[in-house]
């Protein structure tokens, strides 16, 4: 038997994925055994894809087996490539599908209330992720990907970044913990992701290492960074980490790992992480970046999620991770300014503008003095409300 490599998944509840096995032969050309749910619609194009890829990889003779449950072409290509990679043969990638330059670039100050985690080796969940309108999607190469399939996920995520339309969600990738995660960047950075999440950071040098690596791979592009603090040490060095790079735009806390590191149970009330969360928020504000709270892991408990978001918002967090699309509207709603907040903000901004016109330096509303930071916060509330379509851009003239 010749050398064999395989990748992907098939059977059971697997959808939108495929299993590929390649066995190198000495002769006989490329022989394909294809079983596909979509043979009638895409059989010819799948066969053509296999032949082109084998040509590119320089594999003239092989027996290839594909069990396909409706994988899109970028998934098929990723699985075929991952199977080839397992043959231990070096190869050059060419003719990648799609073009990441087609997607809009993100900006530093955008809101990051909701970021949907997508396991990097599960293509089915990626396809409709953008439909649920999270502020960002996180293609995860770290905890949701088993060690044995890290390569497979890296290839799949690379292809997904080139072709899947996430409908304006910020395109984020969570790399593996450093130093291993640096290798992820080689594959990911050329696909112009908007942001890299760096997990389990304990040392500002890690941020610098990522920055340098990105600069080396792609000197011209800006890629934002979001460190995740998941340990006692990480929390202790929160400010140093938050201010380690001008590319940091936000910092998140991972409470599952943090609780484990502390040797305590994670609770609904969260007393065990109050210090860590407070300290992290403070470090973020001090560095001028967004503070992002941990995920809420009980997907079915909407009430619990809502209560948690309220607490987060009150503590100064500006977003939360989502592990299920159903969490997105709840978190979004809770971070949306309430009508009371909006009305107060409008009154403050109007009073300020009026005072400014009259050349007054001191502004007051009712019995309260209004300082510039109060105005700034009010303006931010209104900007937020406009962006979330709860207030019109012409709110000054429109009576709402």
């Amino acid at each position, binding site marked *: 038997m010749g050398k064999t490599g395989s990748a992907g998944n098939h059977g059971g509840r697997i959808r939108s994925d495929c299993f590929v096995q390649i066995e190198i032969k000495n002769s006989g050309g490329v022989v394909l055994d294809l079983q596909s749910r979509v043979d009638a*619609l895409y059989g010819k194009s799948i066969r053509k894809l296999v032949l082109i890829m084998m040509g590119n990889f320089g594999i003239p003779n092989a027996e290839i087996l594909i069990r396909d449950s409706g994988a899109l072409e970028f998934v098929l290509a990723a699985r075929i490539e991952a199977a080839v990679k397992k043959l231990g043969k070096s190869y050059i990638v060419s003719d990648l599908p799609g073009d990441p330059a087609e997607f809009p670039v993100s900006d530093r100050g955008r809101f990051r209330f909701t970021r949907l985690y997508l396991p990097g080796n599960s293509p089915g969940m990626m396809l409709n992720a953008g439909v649920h309108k999270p502020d960002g999607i996180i293609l995860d190469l770290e905890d949701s990907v088993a060690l044995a399939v890290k390569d497979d996920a890296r290839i799949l995520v690379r292809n997904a970044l080139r072709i899947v339309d996430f409908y304006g969600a910020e395109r984020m990738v969570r790399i593996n913990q450093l130093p291993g995660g640096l290798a992820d960047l080689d594959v990911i950075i050329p696909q112009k992701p908007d942001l890299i999440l760096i997990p389990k950071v304990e040392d500002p040098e890690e941020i610098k290492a990522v920055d340098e690596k990105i600069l080396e791979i792609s000197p011209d592009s800006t890629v934002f960074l979001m460190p995740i603090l998941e340990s006692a040490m990480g929390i202790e060095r929160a400010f140093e980490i938050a201010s380690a790079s001008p590319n940091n735009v936000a910092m998140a806390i991972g409470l599952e790992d943090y609780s484990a590191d502390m040797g305590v149970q994670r609770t609904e009330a969260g007393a065990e992480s109050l210090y860590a969360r407070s300290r992290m928020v403070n470090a973020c504000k001090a560095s001028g970046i967004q503070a992002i709270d941990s995920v809420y892991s009980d997907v079915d408990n909407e009430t619990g999620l809502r209560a948690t978001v309220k607490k987060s918002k009150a503590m100064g967090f500006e977003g939360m991770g989502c592990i299920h699309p159903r969490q997105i509207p709840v978190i979004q709603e809770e971070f949306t300014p309430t009508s009371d907040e909006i009305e107060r903000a409008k009154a403050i901004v109007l009073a300020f503008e009026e005072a400014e016109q009259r050349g007054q330096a001191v502004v007051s509303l009712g019995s309260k003095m209004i300082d510039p930071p109060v105005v700034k916060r009010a303006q931010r509330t209104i900007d937020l409300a406009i962006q979330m379509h709860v207030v019109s851009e012409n709110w000054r003239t429109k009576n709402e």
Partner: protein
Amino acid sequence: MNNPDYIKNAAGRMVPVMVNGKPQVEFKGVNKYRPDGNKYAPPIPSSNNYPSDGDKRVPSLKEALKKSGLKNGMCISTHHHFRNGDLLANQIFDVAHELGVKDLVWFPSASFPCHEYLIKYLEDGTIHHIEGSMNGPLGRFTSEGKMKGLGVLRSHGGRYQAVQDGDIHIDIAVIGAGSADPFGNANGLSGPSASGLLGFAFADSQYADRVIVATDNMVDFPCIPWQIHGNYVDFTVEMDRIGDPEQIISGTTRITRSPDRLFLAELTARFCEEAGIIKDGFSFQSGAGGTSLAVGEYFRKIMREKQIKARFARGGSNTYLVSMLEEGLVEFILDGQTFDLEGVRSMRENPSHVWTSPFTSYNHHSKGNFAGMVDVVILGATEIDLDFNANVVTHSDGYLLHGVGGWQNCLFSKTVILPVPLFRDRIPVIREKVTTLCGPGEMIDVVVTERGIAINPLRKDLLDKVKGSGLPLTSIEELWKEAEKICGKPESLEHGDKPVAVVKWVDGTLLDTVWEVK
């Protein structure tokens, strides 16, 4: 194709001029065909031939079939009230096989996976062909050209029409009933095989030459209410088991947990809200699929918030609809098919939970029916094309998938909405042309996908109502392009030259042909 055996119908589809030896009328367009002549009538029976004490019991199903004169070439009808828990149809053909009877026509109101058992009788010639629905393994068998005759697919209303008009002659109807008395009065309201109503058997009881009622719950006369009148019944049979209660409860009647489908359902409900459809006194019908059920739940939310009451809800009943009735959000359920035990209980106990039949709800050849009175109906589809035509009977690879059900009949509702994903595991749902035409596009008003809502340009009124609502409006062409962009351009499907089934329109005309899969 220039073949004298086929004719191009008003929808541009080639349909055979003869089906199983009977001449056909091709589809003429929606509301274009007007039949003449009289309805079909069964032979006049006489009470002289029936026991005067009303006891029509015979000891076994076999005896009943023999006494009914079972012989070669007959048409035997059954019904799908027991859904996948039906134990009756298979036994009927066991008897036929045992008696050496051949070339029967099976005329079920729908078939289920449990009927895969009948493939052996299709193979050995006991059954010649099926007129009803061909699902799963039966669909595969039919699609591969293995059935001797042509399958005929009809809607629930079309089935009533075909029986009433004499398009099909039922020799023997076997009606499985949750409860019955020796005279033949029957209902589906109690007993171990309670299924709610028996509406699908109504036509058969009226028009078949011979009618057998089989039950596993024989009660003393009178069995009330008599959903089936004993006066139509020839023989009654008491059997150990006629249905498997666990399978009678449909597996699909649980609200979906899929975030994508919930998204679709919520968007559909929002559309109805913005279009002003959800208002006091409105009516709706929503299928039993997971997405449709979820639409109902979002309706509930909107109705609660705005304190809106629906006059009636049509369609399959289930726990969710019953709770809306009991909560006072819906005044009446006009039930055509009961999907779970809560539905059965409610129908038994609540006079506002009314049983209907394809006659009252759907029959096109009658003096009107209920379908057109419904304000909004939410349906599914396997494919929808650029002209809003839709397919529900075949997969995109040409294989028969399921029957028409009440789907075609529901298209007569005031607003027809199809919430569908843009693609299912790389199979685009929005196509350039549907593989099989089941519903003419002019009757389909709105297609809701997770990537946008397309309103049929014929419904300018709906377009005007939702303009500026913030709903993600797009066109069917844009959806089609998006589907092909994501999935790739599908290769054109080459089918065989041999027809395997035909799809009838609600008026009995031929809408399309299902071809052998190559």
